[in-house]
């Protein structure tokens, strides 16, 4: 598998899964995912949003606190609690936004697998219901894009279809 291709799938009604290969050993990727000085460098929001507060207590039961701030003064906070920490293989943590734009809390599982110096990261987020999962997906939607066969082909790939000639 080559690096740089992000796959988004919906393995069940309540899940969103993302898989991405990084050209770095697992220990480094794990640090980048769990240490504030690194998280602040990449876990940014859309354009104009910076991760200004980032606190991570990396142990089971430990708290996570993120606050993103926009140039215009808006802010958005998220908190969570680690349920499992297996350095450098796996973390399981809850996540909930301060000003909830979806109900309940989500549970995010990061799994890191290293092969030949590269790391495959899978992030699986499970929401309380299908309706909430769909709302999260909708939030990333960009309207007004032309319907095309390419996009259809992409969807079929994303949905895990293996095309068999009938």
């Amino acid at each position, binding site marked *: 598998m080559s690096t740089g291709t992000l796959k988004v799938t919906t393995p069940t009604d309540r899940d969103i899964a993302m898989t991405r290969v990084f050209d770095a050993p697992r220990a480094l990727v794990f640090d980048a995912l769990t240490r504030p000085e690194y998280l602040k460098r990449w876990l940014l929001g859309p354009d104009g949003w910076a991760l200004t507060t980032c606190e991570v207590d990396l142990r089971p039961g430990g708290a996570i606190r993120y606050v993103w701030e926009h140039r215009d003064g808006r802010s958005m906070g998220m908190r969570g609690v680690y349920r499992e920490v297996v350095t450098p293989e796996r973390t399981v943590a809850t996540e909930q936004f301060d000003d909830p734009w979806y109900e309940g809390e989500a549970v995010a599982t990061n799994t890191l697998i290293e092969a030949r110096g590269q790391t495959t990261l899978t992030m699986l987020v499970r929401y309380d219901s299908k309706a909430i999962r769909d709302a999260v997906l909708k939030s990333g939607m960009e309207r007004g894009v032309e319907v095309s066969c390419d996009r259809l082909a992409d969807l079929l790939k*994303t949905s895990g279809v293996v095309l068999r000639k009938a």
Partner: protein
Amino acid sequence: MPSTDPLDATFAALADPTRRAILARLATGDASVTELAAPFEMSQPAISKHLKVLERAGLISRSRDAQRRPRRLEPQPLAEVTEWLEGYRRFWERRYERLDALLEEMKSTTRAKSRRRRAPRPSSKGTQR
């Protein structure tokens, strides 16, 4: 949870691997129920049930050919779901591209540190007595 959102119906219809495979087949051209049933170890009534779900979600339609009534793919609802996934994917891809750059930097820092550890210190010999 009952919902009237047509996009929810699309997601429910797509949650089944057989139905996704049927759509993948129809993406290559219209097909009759018999043709659609052929690659699966399933009875025609079982396939017909899946087709009904897909039809209710607006993902397929029947064409006018009265003899075979072939099914046809309706791209609009699929395109909307694709847009969701694609928008979400792009958002995370931008984050991960920044993570790529960070990891390159971390790798070169790690390499530089291990080089310093391996290399004999120029001053160490001079201080030995």
